[in-house]
């Protein structure tokens, strides 16, 4: 095994473990917002790491792989938080309220804003 394969293989295994953790988070968390939390963060770093690892492995044969890998990587790093943010806002406006453990009233600051907006519309 060459040095490129060792470094790339390390990134590959690390990334696939984070992808697995993302799937586990989606499976275990109690409501849609917490699922988004686990899903977005773990899968972003996981996918970035796997794609970068493949680019590193192929670096000794062909330099074009890592350039295209960087294009996919940057696209995922920009698009993934945007889609999760759009989804979170859509869920709140579609009246799916977050699961809140403690009885504190201030825990949901966004509800005030939505209520105020409704009052203004009426």
């Amino acid at each position, binding site marked *: 095994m060459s040095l490129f394969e060792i470094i790339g293989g390390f990134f590959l295994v690390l990334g696939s*473990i984070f992808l697995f953790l993302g799937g586990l988070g989606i499976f275990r968390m109690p409501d849609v917002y917490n*699922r988004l939390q686990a899903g977005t963060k773990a*899968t972003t770093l996981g996918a970035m790491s796997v794609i970068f690892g493949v680019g590193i492995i192929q670096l000794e044969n062909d330099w074009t*792989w890592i350039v295209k890998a960087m294009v996919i990587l940057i*696209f995922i790093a920009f698009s*993934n938080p*945007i889609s999760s943010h759009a989804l979170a806002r859509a869920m709140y406006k579609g009246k799916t309220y977050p699961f809140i453990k403690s009885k504190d009233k201030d825990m949901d600051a966004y509800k005030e804003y939505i209520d105020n907006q409704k009052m203004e519309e009426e």
Partner: protein
Amino acid sequence: MTYIIYIALFFMIIGLSLSAVRFVKGPTAGDRVVALDTLTIIIVSGLVLLSYVFDRFIYMDVALVYAVLGFIGVIVIARYLEGAL
């Protein structure tokens, strides 16, 4: 090297099946969309890994196009759920 690829594919397949369970089970539409988003990202990285395994450069383009389409799909569904479409 073969073993490393087997280990990586193993973890990816477990992640895929866990989010597929959530995709089938999810109580609301939002849960299903979150699971779909995760499925898309895992499949994109799987395609990149497979393009290395089969040594075909063109599969990288497939992965890129799939990432773009998945992103647009999630945005459109989110706008629809929000009631703004």
